[in-house]
């Protein structure tokens, strides 16, 4: 069998239903094989869009996302998408074409050393040098991408490998002697954790993206209710507990809720699950939760003790460990702490000045009108407003580039999420700066009838940088005014064949959102928001979580 056909057959055996990509000379054989396959292919307009779409598909569905690109520039265009998936532990497999093995190293046309380039941003990668290995490599690639701490895997396919004749024996077993993720959690450590929990007077659970990846939300909520402990999430952990749950304190960190930050700062025990204590979550790490002991549950041993010192490390899968932990802890009333945190919740709600046309209002209304929608975000102010004002109810509902912070991620990711869930409403909360970074995928949405709704919070600025310049750089607005108030997103959308709308004042917001929700086609709404709106509260750079400031 031609190796290209074997590759496509292997993808079918892995249960792959959809691939995002762009064909080209070096991968043309695989595309030829795809022509006869039941796998849907979505041709994006840029390879970065393809990798983000595969990533969005993976995050929304929990399945592995797949992208195809050709060699050289096709491959290098995937790097941002791969790095984004890597930082947020998202399972994608990227297949890149490569020049024939005989030409590798000769600087042939469209040759790039993509395995060398992506080494630091993939969980693993392969350059196939013998066609006989290609099937076992594909098997390994999907296994590595989707197990343990998930992540992107790249498989580089030289053209002569794809044309070679091989036997189709898709391996059932995997031979990876150096790869055995620990899942169960050590019983002694779990017992020690339970002991600390029972002693604690002010326990807080800090839930990260790992809870969502591990499908451990049910176990998390059960543990929280049993102890009981308030649950603070990281940005990536949003959705691990419904944010309407009485024990939910929303997300912590630089722009998190005041009460989440206060609770972490004052707690005497943090039960961290599937999070990596990133600087955006901890604030000044030297002053992070000074009185708390820390239990850290993570599947990746390298995350434990990397950024903060940990008292009880537990290496294992969040779902399994949380379930075991729940069995060994008992309910204990901690009224004083409960009252204190609830008092913070009452006293310091998220708020904003309601004069003019505020972006927060748009998000609040979007939440009221489309509470079950899958929400993706771009990066910057739009991302933080979305995180603050869209109350996430279920896991995989909120999709954002938390680690790499990739502007241009949200829109193609929304496309991927919509492909995974055609019946759901999928919205991308965007800024004008971010939306431009992958706006070309509007053409893809129109072509494949992917009815993503893009809410552009258009302030004409690279707003988060503008905010920092205002607050910390004496209002010297260097290079942040991009003048998108002059750009007509409505007309741009129409030019692509999508639906465009412009909303200039708060009174028009509801009608536009309701209308958009009912349209079974891609929609772009240009919200002409107050450009001076900033994201608050905020932990200033270098400050501790306790020093979170308001607008005034």
């Amino acid at each position: 069998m031609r190796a290209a056909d074997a590759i496509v057959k292997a993808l079918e055996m892995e249960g792959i239903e959809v691939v995002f990509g762009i064909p080209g000379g070096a991968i043309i054989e695989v595309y030829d094989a795809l022509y006869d396959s039941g796998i849907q292919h979505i041709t994006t307009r840029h390879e970065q869009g393809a990798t983000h779409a595969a990533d969005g598909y993976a995050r929304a569905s929990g399945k592995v996302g797949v992208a195809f690109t050709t060699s050289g520039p096709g491959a290098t265009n995937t790097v941002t998408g791969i790095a984004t998936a890597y930082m947020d532990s998202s399972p994608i497999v990227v297949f890149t074409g490569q020049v024939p093995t005989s030409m590798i190293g000769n600087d042939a046309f469209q040759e790039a050393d993509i395995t060398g380039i992506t080494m630091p941003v993939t969980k693993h990668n392969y350059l196939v040098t013998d066609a006989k290995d290609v099937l076992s490599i594909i098997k390994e690639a999907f296994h590595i991408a989707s197990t343990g701490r998930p992540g992107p895997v790249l498989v580089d396919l030289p053209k002569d490998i794809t044309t070679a004749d091989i036997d189709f024996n898709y391996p059932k077993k995997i031979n990876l002697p150096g790869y055995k993720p620990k899942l169960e959690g050590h019983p002694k450590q779990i017992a020690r954790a339970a002991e600390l929990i029972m002693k604690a007077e002010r326990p807080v659970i800090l839930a990260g993206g790992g809870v969502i990846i591990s499908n451990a939300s049910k176990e998390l909520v059960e543990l929280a209710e049993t102890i009981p402990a308030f649950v603070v999430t990281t940005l990536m952990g949003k959705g691990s507990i419904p944010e309407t749950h009485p024990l939910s304190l929303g997300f912590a960190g630089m722009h998190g809720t005041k009460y989440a930050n206060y609770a972490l700062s004052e707690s005497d025990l943090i039960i961290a699950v599937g999070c990596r204590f990133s600087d955006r979550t901890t604030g000044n790490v030297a002053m992070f939760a000074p009185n708390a002991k820390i239990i850290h549950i993570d599947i990746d041993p390298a995350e434990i003790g990397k950024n903060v010192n940990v008292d009880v490390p537990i290496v294992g899968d969040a779902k399994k460990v949380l379930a075991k932990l729940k069995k060994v802890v008992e309910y204990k009333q901690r009224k004083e702490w409960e009252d204190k945190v609830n008092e913070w919740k009452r006293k310091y709600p998220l708020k904003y000045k309601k004069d003019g046309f505020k972006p927060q209002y748009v998000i609040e209304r979007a939440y009221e009108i489309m509470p079950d929608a899958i929400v993706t975000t771009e990066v910057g102010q739009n991302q933080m407003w979305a995180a603050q004002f869209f109350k996430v109810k279920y896991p995989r509902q909120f999709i954002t580039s938390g680690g790499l912070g990739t502007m241009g991620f949200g829109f193609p990711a929304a496309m991927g999420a919509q492909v995974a869930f055609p019946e759901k409403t999928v919205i991308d909360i965007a800024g004008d700066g971010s939306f431009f970074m992958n706006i070309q995928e509007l053409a893809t949405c129109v072509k494949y009838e992917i009815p993503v709704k893009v809410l552009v919070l258009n302030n004409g600025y690279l707003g988060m940088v503008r905010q920092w310049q205002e607050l910390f750089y004496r209002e010297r607005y260097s290079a942040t005014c991009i003048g998108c108030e002059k750009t007509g997103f409505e007309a741009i959308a129409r030019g692509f064949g999508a639906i465009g709308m412009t909303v200039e004042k708060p009174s028009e917001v509801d009608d536009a959102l309701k209308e958009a929700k009912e349209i079974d086609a891609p929609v772009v709404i240009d919200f002409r928001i107050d450009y001076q709106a900033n994201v608050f509260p905020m932990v200033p750079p270098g400050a501790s979580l306790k020093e979170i400031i308001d607008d005034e």
Partner: protein
Amino acid sequence: MKHTIAVLVENKPGVLARVASLFRRRGFNIDSLSVGTTEREDLSRMTIVVEGDDKVVEQVIKQLNKLIETIKVSEISESSVERELCLIRVHAPPEKRGEIVELTNIFRARIVDVSRDSFIIEVTGDEDKVSAFIDLMRQYGIKELARTGKVAMVRGSKK
């Protein structure tokens, strides 16, 4: 502080690049690195000397363990055999040859090549011994020097 780490990896192309890339990306300092075959032809062994405190070394070990092709990582502590090999081309005029031969014998080193005005001397031993010998040779004029990284093995029977 210096730590010696032994890494058993699959003998596949690109593994050394992965290890080197990891050290560079995470900002770990490699003092020396040696790679070679082992008793099994599908495995290679790297001996890496890394500079850093305990926290750094803990991260180095954990990150190395994360590489898919890594089979085993172990830190080699005090009770181990550690060796380096060094070749030194030293200036050896007739009047100095006797002295140099004597020093070579004291260090249980070997003269492996003799020419009209120089020797090549091979010395093996732990880092201190090799360094001490190099220092002694400086007075005669070292023309060329090639030193391997360290290889190391824990003493006693294999666990």
